[in-house]
């Protein structure tokens, strides 16, 4: 297409606001898909960065850094405690004959809890709750960042104990705009990457199916006879199975993965294109312009590709947009059943499936975000396809 006719095409396209809006939305999602790594605040594929403390947070809640933990061992001889190894900021002091005080030296950090372990018999920690079985005493929010170890009896000549100090959790500036899922994954990032995966799988699978199916359909229409019979009976055979069954069997044989899912979708969808393009081509082949082209001794491939195919394209493009949506849903169904994409690289459909189990516990945001995005994306793609169909047919225009 020359530059002038491209500009003309763009001008005609712009006449419809719905078309423009759907184009904008589709382009927005395409942009999201292409630049997901730059746009998303976190990398949802990096499992080492996930914190379970962030799991299932609702929309708009801030990220929380888990508290730090200090561990220290102390040896006590004749009532005097000495650090055993590195003890950090923890220090001990004597607070009487049968008493040892343990506290955090620095005043800036505040302890959330302080636990004293392995005390000998008869000793306890003031204001602490004891573990029901283990000799562990825990004080929450210790006053002055310290606790006192007291004993009913005189202190043993030599013993040791260990201390575990935890600092408080700290909310950060980072906000989970769309909440988090069960793994503590930022849903916004997951959605952006999900759009990327879904569009990639949908477009590539539906596109390959279109090329293969349309090619075979045109071949069947042109050759007729045995070629036609073989191709169309194969199509009938494929169409007699539900798409999900074909997808499942193929993935059961091939194993899971993005490439296998695409292969499965292509194998399911090529027959729609073959059937449609064959019937369209047959009706076009009956028209006199095809006879005229044959009378002009144009080669068969040229008649099919340049004369017949463009006249079939409007319907095939509509089928293509619909099949992108169908491919996305088939892929997510397969992912939902556990044979599609790996859990570490979730598509939109898989995110919806992941959130499905939490919907009844009012954790709606896990499914809601991806679902809304998927809905808007598919509606926009369909509207865009309709607009392109109208433009592609000069007779519908104006």
């Amino acid at each position, binding site marked *: 297409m020359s530059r002038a006719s491209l500009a003309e095409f763009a001008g005609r396209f712009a006449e419809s606001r719905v078309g423009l809006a759907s184009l904008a939305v589709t382009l927005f999602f395409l942009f999201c898909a292409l630049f997901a790594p730059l746009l998303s605040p976190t990398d949802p594929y990096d499992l080492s960065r996930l914190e379970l403390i962030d799991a299932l947070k609702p929309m708009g809640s801030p990220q929380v850094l888990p508290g730090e933990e200090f561990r220290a061992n102390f040896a006590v001889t004749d009532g005097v405690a000495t650090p055993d190894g590195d003890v950090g900021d923890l220090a001990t002091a004597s607070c009487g004959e049968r008493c040892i005080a343990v506290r955090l030296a620095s005043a800036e950090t505040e302890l959330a809890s302080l636990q004293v372990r392995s005390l000998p018999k008869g000793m306890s920690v003031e204001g602490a709750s004891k573990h029901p079985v283990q000799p562990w005493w825990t004080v929450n929010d210790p006053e002055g960042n310290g606790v006192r170890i007291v004993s009913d009896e005189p202190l043993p000549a030599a013993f040791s104990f260990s201390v575990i100090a935890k600092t408080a959790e700290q909310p950060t500036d980072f906000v989970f705009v769309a909440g988090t899922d069960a793994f503590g994954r930022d849903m916004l990032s997951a959605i952006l990457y999900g759009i990327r995966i879904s569009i990639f799988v949908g477009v590539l699978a539906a596109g390959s199916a279109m090329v293969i199916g349309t090619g075979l359909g045109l071949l069947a229409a042109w050759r007729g006879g045995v070629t036609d019979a073989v191709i169309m009976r194969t199509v009938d055979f494929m169409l007699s199975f539900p798409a999900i069954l074909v997808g499942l069997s193929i993935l059961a044989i091939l194993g899971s993965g993005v490439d296998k899912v695409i292969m499965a979708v292509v194998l399911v969808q090529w027959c729609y294109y073959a059937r449609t393009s064959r019937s369209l081509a047959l009706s076009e082949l009956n*028209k*006199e*312009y095809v*006879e*005229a*082209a*044959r*009378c*002009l*001794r*144009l080669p068969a491939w*040229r008649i099919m590709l*340049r*004369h017949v195919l*463009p*006249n079939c394209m409007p319907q095939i493009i509509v089928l293509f947009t619909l099949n992108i949506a169908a491919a996305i849903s088939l892929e997510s169904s397969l992912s939902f059943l556990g044979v599609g994409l790996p859990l570490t690289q979730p598509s939109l459909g898989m995110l919806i499936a992941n959130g499905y189990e939490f919907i009844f516990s009012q954790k709606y945001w896990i499914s809601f975000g991806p679902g809304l995005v998927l809905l808007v994306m598919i509606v926009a793609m369909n509207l865009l396809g309709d607009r392109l169909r109208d433009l592609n047919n*000069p*007779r519908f225009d104006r």
Partner: protein
Amino acid sequence: MTQPVFEARDVSRIFEPAQGALQRLGDRLAGRQPPLVRAVDRVTLSVSEGETLGIVGESGCGKSTLARMIAGILPVSGGERRYRGEGYDSFLARKRDALKVQMVFQDPMSSLNPRLKVGEIIGEAAALHGVVPRAQIRRYVVETLNRVGLPADAIDRYPHEFSGGQRQRVGIARALAVKPDLLVCDEAVAALDVSVQAQIINLLMDIKQDSGLSMIFISHDLGLIRHLCDRVAVMYLGRVVELAGTEELFSNPTHPYTQMLLAGMPQISLKRRTFMPIKGEIPSPLAPPPGCHFHPRCLAATDHCSTRRPELVELAPGHTHACLNAGLTRN
């Protein structure tokens, strides 16, 4: 005698109606012949240099099938076609030469690809086959458009932007663009308004005069045929029943069918005429009457008309017909 541009000898086209596999199997088991349609049945005709041959007949008599066989779009089931003495097999194999026979179609709507611009429709074959160098193709298309009376700016427009008559001009330009020797016009004006018909007819006659190409003009309109053609072949149910020079045929028709056709032709005259329609319907080509196809409707039919097939016989130089009762029908 100079060699004719095109020659058909005993050309036939047999169609087998589409049947299910079961039906075919049943036919084969019962030893039945599957029903065949002889759309064109052993037609012999020729066109010489610069001549216009008219082919006239009712709907369904095989005119269009014959046209497509002449144009080399349909294969023949029997007989042979020759272009300047060369058999069609080798003629059609050389794509560049096969362009010498071109066709103008009936329906100006469906005979132009709606997705191609007029310039592409006209110039595509000429560029592809190297009739004109690619660099000059645009200028050549404009020239061709001018030749058929279309403005140069038509080149960048789509067929749907034109009226029926203009579209037919595009169709003629498409055929002319590859410089043919023989133009087959299959009901080329039947779909047009009468006023537009006249323009297209004049255009065709001008083109013929300018370039001296031969033409086969197929129509059911006797007036047009008379106006345009040098010789006329009358077809009935796939067979040529009479073939003569236009003047001879219209003044002295010998075959009963031709006589009846001409009697039904509207004429401007003050005399009261008795109008006699041809009795009966045109029979189904699936089960044509035996012998002479016309005998059930023929006023002059005798007994042997239903048993013997009449062959074309020459009555006078250049005037042949296929009737067993030659003497009877001569008036």
